[in-house]
């Protein structure tokens, strides 16, 4: 277990700048998830921490010691790769024992560690098998086992569930959460799947174009997004982002109909261009007043329904309802926007808070 501190970490590949000065502190035993769209630099950041890529600038410290110049082999970290990266010619046992042999552990100690990890990961019956004789989920567990046996300072996970099918992904996600609770190690996990991020993380780091957009607990990011990017990225279905203008203090005007919504406008003056954010699950139906919505599509999932529709002058709006909605395409409904659950962003995309 260890602490990690990144200070102004920059990484460029030739003229392409991938990371633009990342500052981050990860506490001992914390589970931190890097999340962001493809190409945002999250995997590069993980590889930089691992030592598989050098930095262009800045520093990396583990437990207070600068490891920026150390090769991956000397940082004491373990990584679980997206492709599992199991040695195909070695048995499960050999795969898990290989790093320990490199480190000069005695045979008894190696055997004890491998069998303990195999027991935790339900791999004891497969120790003599080669990776090709295992299922995807079993291979993933071997990759995790290979990391566990080393008792590393920090576990690094690079999109470890992305090659699994949906059902197995959910099961393995739960196993990972249980493993973190059991081992208590510091873990850094990269994913583009926000559900994985929300369910696993103590803290989430949202990245975009090589910069940190926001760091916080999953519910922090959900309840109080700092900017439009985080607001749109966290939450599924994504938050409705509606362009409007400040009519007067505490009132925002939306769409062609000039529908007025009560909302905290901070120090913004009348006429300021804003974006109003409201999550699909926070919209409610109103009888005859509110923002009109022409229903274009209804998705009924059994326990919940999604209505997709449009309102004059506004982009498509998504509404989440409990149960099985009776609405049909072509219906017009009215939406109530509860002011306590609205998010307002200024022209630059920054959240307006009181």
């Amino acid at each position, binding site marked *: 277990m260890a602490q990690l501190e990144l200070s102004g970490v920059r990484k460029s590949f030739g003229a392409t700048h991938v990371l633009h000065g990342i500052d981050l502190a990860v506490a001992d035993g914390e589970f931190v998830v890097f999340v962001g769209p493809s190409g945002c630099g999250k995997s590069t950041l993980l590889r930089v921490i*691992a*030592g*598989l890529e050098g930095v262009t600038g800045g520093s990396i410290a583990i437990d207070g010691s600068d490891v920026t110049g150390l*090769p*991956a*082999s*000397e940082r004491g*970290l*373990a*990584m679980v*790769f997206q*492709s599992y*990266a*199991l*040695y*195909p*010619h070695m048995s499960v046992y050999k795969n898990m024992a*290989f*790093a320990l042999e*490199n*480190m000069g552990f005695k045979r008894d100690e190696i055997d004890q560690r491998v069998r303990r990890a195999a027991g935790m990961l339900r791999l004891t019956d497969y120790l003599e098998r080669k990776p090709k004789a295992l299922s995807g989920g079993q291979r993933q567990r071997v990759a995790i086992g*290979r990391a566990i046996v*080393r008792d590393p300072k920090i576990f690094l996970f690079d999109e470890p569930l992305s090659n699994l099918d949906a059902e197995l992904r959910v099961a393995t996600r739960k196993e990972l959460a249980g493993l973190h609770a059991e081992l208590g190690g510091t873990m850094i996990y990269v994913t583009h799947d926000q559900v994985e991020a929300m369910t696993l993380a103590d803290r989430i780091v949202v990245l975009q174009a090589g910069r940190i957009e926001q760091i916080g607990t999953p519910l922090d990011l959900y309840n109080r997004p700092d900017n439009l990017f985080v607001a749109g990225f966290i939450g599924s279905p994504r938050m409705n982002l509606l362009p409007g203008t400040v009519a007067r203090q505490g009132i925002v005007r939306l769409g062609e109909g000039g529908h007025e919504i009560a909302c905290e406008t901070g120090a913004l003056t009348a006429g300021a261009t804003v974006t109003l954010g409201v999550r699909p699950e926070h919209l409610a139906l109103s009888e005859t007043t509110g923002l009109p919505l022409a229903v274009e599509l209804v998705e009924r999932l059994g326990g919940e329904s999604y209505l997709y529709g449009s309102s004059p002058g506004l982009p498509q709006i998504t509404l989440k309802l409990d149960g099985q909605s009776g609405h049909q395409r072509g219906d017009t409904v009215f939406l109530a926007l509860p002011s306590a659950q609205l998010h307002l962003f200024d022209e630059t995309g920054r959240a307006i808070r009181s």
Partner: protein
Amino acid sequence: MTGPTPTAPRRDDGAGASDLIAAPLALLSRLIDWPMRAIQRVIGERRMAYVFLLPNLAFFGLFVFVPLIINVVFSVTGGAALFPSQRPYVGAGQYAYLFDCGSFLDPNSCREDHFWRGVSNTARFTLFQVTAMVLFSLVTAVVLNMRIRARGFFRAVYFFPVLLSPVVVALTWKWILQRDGLLNAGITSLGGERILFLVDPSWAMFWIVFVSIWAHMGFYTLILLAGLQAIPADLYEAAEMDATPRWRTFWRITLPLLWPNMIVVIVLALIKGVQTFDEVFVLTGGGPGTATLMVVHYIYETAFSNQVQNFGLAAAASVVLGVVLFALTLAQLAASSRKGAA
């Protein structure tokens, strides 16, 4: 007022060129259309595949299968006549003559000592050549797989000799190695004594092995390079995270994963080594004496070059060589199929 100037239709040169090819082809296809339809009507659509295979099969039969049979027939006949009908049947006599040895390890104790000298030379040549070639090819492939400057240039340079005819290779090296060749010119200009590279028996064997490696290494390097590039990069990253020293990464990760390619390279090099003829023939002519006489060279001389042309004995030696090559080919096929299954 002037109207728009009429323009002549533009001729597309590319289309013109393709017309030049397409028109005769279209004519040809019309010409063969009728007979093909007629054949199909007679034999049915399913058997048409054999019609398409027939030209190649006929060619293969005429130039490979028939000579193979004739060779076996010659190997059980004697005399100097060319036509099998005029050759007396001797059964396994030619083979008995070939294998009439006091000790197979001592060519002097054999009745046909040149054959066994050829076998001995070929075995020594193949052992040295294959061992050295596989090692050099492996090292070269590993280096060419690294991120080195001008990698593409070096890859082309190492492959280039493969494209040359063996006779061109041998003549070039003969020009370098002969008594008044380039190498001796260099040695004498530095005050040294001329060395008879192609006349001294131990030097002659060294140089035919060297030239053979120089000529063929690029091909085997290419196979090994392809194998190295097929090893996923993330395995090396995992090894790095596992604190694996570089030499151990090579022994425990690279070599085992490259082994199927290595087997193919070894067996192919063995087959090629046993068949060696042209480079040695041009470079040393099998000499000095019989110091570099190879089996294939012996077969050629026995059949065509000696004053008494002994087709039967040469054919028997060919059959023996063919059996060895067949065994090696089976080994290569087995290795390839294991590689495919891996």
